[in-house]
């Protein structure tokens, strides 16, 4: 027996709210009433509904904020949001500002609303472009974002987890998945919490990418590495941490000293005239990554070359032995 779908209603109009609630319940949806606007987000975060209906016909800036906040978080943006918009007002809407998944006109034509609800719920199931594990934007969005970054004072940064395969082999794919989700969250939160934010994406496996203003690179990389170390510290026992490795069987069945998890970040500034094409960014990143992986600890490497073809002059700012 399928559990009832839970729909959250956000409307300032009491009458409308009541009608909507009754009609939705008649179609076997469970309606969740949201408290006053300032509390809506917290409510949704602690108990995510399956779909949200927002009344945008009665103008309320707080509703608009809720919509934007929800759609900015990669986890919560997967909850479909249907907006109620006044008849005819649809034409004037700047859709960029209103990231809805669908809308219906107000006064509501219920058969249409019900169809759209079902469509939205189905649509979200089709893998758009988001990585199903971390819910972060995937390769189509990433490609586009890199192209948009070329020539601007930004940096495209690639994260890759060191020693991830042996970890996955030893502890299993579920645990490996958790690590991937952790890295996804740490990266997203760190980028989002810095001035001017940025773009985050998940290429696949243990490869992630983020694009931020050049001036924030050091701060963001250091924070991501620090947060990663804190979180990952819980995954290993005290003795393993002290030794810097754990014992695990490699692919040949031989027990090896396996280093703990770490991350490498390859930073490619895009204000560089050498960066004419997204493919060049990817190529340079691959070189930097090789360099970064030479360090036994988590570190980030920034490409500072401006002309072709000088030998690599890369920084390893968080390498302790320097």
């Amino acid at each position, binding site marked *: 027996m399928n559990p009832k779908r839970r729909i959250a209603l956000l409307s300032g109009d009491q009458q409308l709210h009541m009608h909507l609630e009754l009609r939705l319940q008649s179609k076997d949806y469970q309606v969740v009433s949201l408290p006053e606007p*300032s509390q809506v987000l917290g409510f949704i*975060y*602690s108990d995510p509904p399956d779909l949200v209906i927002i009344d945008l016909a009665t103008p309320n800036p707080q509703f608009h904020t809720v919509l934007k906040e929800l759609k900015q*978080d990669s986890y919560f943006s997967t909850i479909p949001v249907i907006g109620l918009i006044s008849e005819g007002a649809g034409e004037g809407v700047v859709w960029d500002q209103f990231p809805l998944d669908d809308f219906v006109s107000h006064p509501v034509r219920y058969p249409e609303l019900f169809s759209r609800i079902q469509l939205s719920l189905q649509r979200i199931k089709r893998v758009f472009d988001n990585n199903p594990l971390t819910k972060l934007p995937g390769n189509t969005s990433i490609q586009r974002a890199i192209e948009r970054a070329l020539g601007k004072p930004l940096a495209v940064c690639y994260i890759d987890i060191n020693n991830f395969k042996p970890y996955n082999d030893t502890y299993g794919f579920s645990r490996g998945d*958790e690590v991937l989700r*952790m890295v996804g969250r740490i990266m997203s939160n760190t980028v989002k*919490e810095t001035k001017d934010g940025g773009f985050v994406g998940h290429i696949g496996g243990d490869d992630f990418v983020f694009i931020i203003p050049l001036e924030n690179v050091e701060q963001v990389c250091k924070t991501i590495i620090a947060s990663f170390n*804190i*979180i990952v510290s819980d995954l290993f026992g005290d003795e393993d941490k002290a030794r810097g490795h754990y014992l695990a069987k490699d692919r040949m069945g031989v027990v090896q000293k396996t280093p703990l998890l770490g991350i490498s970040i390859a930073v490619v500034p895009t204000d560089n005239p050498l960066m004419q094409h997204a493919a060049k960014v990817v190529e340079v990143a691959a070189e930097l990554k090789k360099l970064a992986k030479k360090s036994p600890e988590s570190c980030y490497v920034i490409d500072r070359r401006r002309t072709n073809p000088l030998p690599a002059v890369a920084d390893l700012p968080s390498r302790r032995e320097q």
Partner: protein
Amino acid sequence: MESKRTEIKRIIKDTKSLPTLPGVIAKLGALAENNSVSVHEMARVVSSDQVLSAKVLRLVNSAFYGFSGRVSTVSNALILLGVNVVKSLAISSSIFEIMEKNVVGLWEHSMGVAVAANVISKRLGLPEPEETSTAALLHDIGKVIIKIKLQEDYGHLTALINEKGLMMLEAERELLEADHAEIGEWLGQTWLLPEKLIEPIACHHDVARSRVHQTKTAVVHVSDVLIKASGFGYSGDDLVPLIQPVAWQKLGLNAELLASIVEEVEDKLVEVRNFSLDIQSNNEPKA
């Protein structure tokens, strides 16, 4: 006719959130407005409140995030959930409608036990002091359930305690067939909290029952005894429970060590008291 235990388990399954002090929410609201204030201040206030901490931990350990039972401290939850989510969660929490001495008392008691657990863990060089402190903060969360969801029973419990001079634990077992430690355990399991938090909650009155996390459980038990001896806060009765020798031995305590621990705890409690007064000054019921 449903047994009391079944009734309580059912109630817990339906519990998605619990209320806390209006003063805490007010303080967080003020911090949230101020952008430069800081993640650390917010984390500090959230981690001093058992209800908010439980809420944050419930969210980060939920199926939605996929970290199933892996996250045991508010600071780690903050890193994984992000500041915005924690902020929104905190300021949207419900509050106790009726403020009374017991509500503030329990809140203070929980904070006190968390502080004591932190001091003991650090003093004895034990691993994971923050996790132990979190478990200590949450140790009496079962009592919040009883107070909020079993109000009639709560009234009977207080009457029983006054009448017969019982400890809260004894009254609970008599009236509810379950005690707050067990209830806390069920809540922890329902909210998918990590085992290293659940076991100390479940066994803080019966340390011998703990399996994997014996040290943490011993610390929470001893901390609870010390705070009750200190008279700080109020957790339902004013009786100091007997300290269990198994906990004493497990931690390798002795009189001198304990005396010095107590001195440090008492010093820290003064700051906790100041914090509490600050929070209480904002406890006026909503207009």
